[in-house]
């Protein structure tokens, strides 16, 4: 039980990391391999807000994501778009470019902040709710960590906001139209290049949210990005490239799967489990979870 709870809480946060990458991939067909590094940058912003002004990492949700949005827009406009336009022998210039941006960000962080591990020692870091406090004779003891639960709930809220944005607003609809068919969207009068810029900003902002939510429960160092880029990538593949709902499910599946592997096989095996599920998804379910959802709908 405890394992399942832990897995779902972790999965919710993973999903938020995955969604941003999925969105970028869906709209622009760019594999953004600097995703985790953007998260690292957001975490440093939140960290310094806490250090300097004692702003709670959760309140940094109003600070870091807008800044990262701006950074994402800048990256797309001045680095990625020019590279996409260049004709070159390598068709996947953008992959190399994003890896490069990631390395630059990581090394800049190392220079500016040193490679020290840091964490924000918030007071509630290890507070938790216990089932046995509420119900004395409970047969199973389950505890819900306060920061983990808050982060999970906020992650769900942010996801709902995103869904609302994509489904109801004009900009959101334009983004979805661009994702479906770029040329058709352009013919319908959608400013495609603008949408791409916004999407990259949005993806960066989403992963910034994830960073703020991670800060109270995890720690921070410049090399942290690559680990989360990898996780985001696995989730994106698992969820089906470009599907938002797929990414949410993918995140949850990965979270629960990792917790299960850790409990029943051994904690050292969790990363192995991650890649096993990654390969399995590629081989047996190339369309990801999204394709399952689609086929269900068709048969109905």
């Amino acid at each position, binding site marked *: 039980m*405890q*394992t399942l709870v*832990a*897995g779902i809480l*972790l999965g919710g946060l993973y999903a938020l990391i995955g969604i941003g990458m999925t969105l970028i991939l869906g709209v622009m067909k760019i594999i953004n391999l600097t995703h985790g590094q953007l998260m690292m940058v957001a975490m440093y912003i939140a960290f310094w807000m806490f250090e300097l002004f004692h702003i709670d990492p959760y309140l940094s949700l109003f600070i870091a994501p807008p800044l990262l949005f701006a950074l994402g827009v800048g990256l797309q406009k001045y680095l990625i778009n020019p590279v996409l336009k260049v004709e070159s022998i390598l068709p996947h210039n953008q992959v190399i470019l994003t890896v490069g941006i990631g390395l630059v960000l990581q090394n800049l962080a*190392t220079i500016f902040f*040193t*490679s*020290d*591990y840091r*964490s924000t*020692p918030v*007071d509630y*870091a*290890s*507070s*938790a709710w*216990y089932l046995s406090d509420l119900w004395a004779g409970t047969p199973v*003891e389950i*505890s819900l*960590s306060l920061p983990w639960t808050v982060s999970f709930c906020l992650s769900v809220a942010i996801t709902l906001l995103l869904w609302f944005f994509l489904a109801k607003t004009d900009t959101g609809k334009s983004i979805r139209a661009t994702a479906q068919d770029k040329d058709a969207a352009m013919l319908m009068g959608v400013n495609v290049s603008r949408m791409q810029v916004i999407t990259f900003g949005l993806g960066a902002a989403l992963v910034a949210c994830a960073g703020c939510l*991670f800060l109270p*429960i*995890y*720690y921070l*160092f410049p*090399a*942290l990005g690559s*680990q989360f880029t990898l996780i985001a990538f696995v989730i994106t593949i698992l969820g089906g490239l470009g599907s938002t709902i797929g990414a949410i499910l993918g995140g949850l599946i990965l979270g629960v799967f*990792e*917790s*299960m592997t*850790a*409990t029943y096989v*051994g*904690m*050292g095996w*969790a*990363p192995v489990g991650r890649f096993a599920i990654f390969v399995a998804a590629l081989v047996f379910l190339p369309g990801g979870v999204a394709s399952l959802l689609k086929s269900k709908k068709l048969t109905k």
Partner: protein
Amino acid sequence: MRKWIALAAACCMTVMSMTAFAQDKIELTVPLPLTGGQAKFGEIIKKSYDIALEEINAKGGVNGKLLVLNYEDSQGKPEIARSIAEKIIDVQKQPVLFAEYTSACAKAVAAVAEERKTPYLVIASAADEITQQNYKYVFRLNPTNAYYSEGLLGFMSDVVKPQSVAILYESSDFGTSGADEMAKACEAKGMKVLMKEKYEKGAVDFKPILSQVKAANPDVIFMVSYVMDAALLMRQIKELRIDAKLFAGGAAGFAIPEFIDNAKDASEYVVTATLWSPQVPFKGAKEFAEKYKAAHGNYPSYHGALAYSSLFVIADALSRTKAMTADDIRDALLATNMQTAFGDVKFESKNGYQNQNFAETLALQVIGGKHETIWPEKYASAKYVFPIPKWRERK
């Protein structure tokens, strides 16, 4: 034409004065992890070297020659450490090597040093096999993993008297050998090892493995981790309210002040093995600790004391060596018998180890948000707290 001659003469003069100057100092290159995941420790070691260097040079250096250290960043990666070591020996012709931090890196450097017949002094890498391979040129100042927990084990068998133990460790050289030695020591003392689980460094969520620990209900939970994992582990143990008679850490991550800063109240009463503390009565230990604190704001960990003392060991060997050749320096190191801030230093070959310094180790406990020495009792700076209160009963 005359101008050219003058210029050439000037050049000659500079070159000559440079070589003359070079004779007045001994330059040594030191490989350390200054960036990357282990940089924290590399930094402690470097700061301590600088304090020792200043003291040595203030007292006239090594036989009147100024000692100069140059640092090379190995990023904590064995392959980089190896290539730095090769460069130091083959290109710079340096007759002696020391430092590096992680066991994996030290192992790589030790292999190079042995191959090139250049003495290498390991200062803080604990994996046992480094001095168990019949290496003739590898020396080690810190006690090995097998001896790390001597102090802790003494405390356990005299005070805690546990029946069972669960061991969690990170899947590195240091973690694995620490866990293996602990398991052996526990079994030898008649304790049951209920679990021995490794985890991948940098894991976010330890709860799955901790719920297993909770179900196993061991008397002692022993963990071998670097600093951030150590803090996360204790925080999540508190969250799950896992009660044990003793939470014990195997040095490294648990023994430095950052552990308490990050784990906050979850760190209270945690006992850790360590090699040294600022309170030990060795000559120069207190002075070094205060000097370090004045310069950098907090007390050094045992890594600092090892680094500080190791430079004195090196300087001592260099001042006694017949010539600046690898073999003479090795002989000088072999004959080492001196007092340092880390205690008496002597390199012995026994119990399957070669050129190993055997030192007494301590146990620390976090009491009132501070590390206090609790064991052996002759070195204690505070009375240990045992039994420790259950999580539920803490405020």
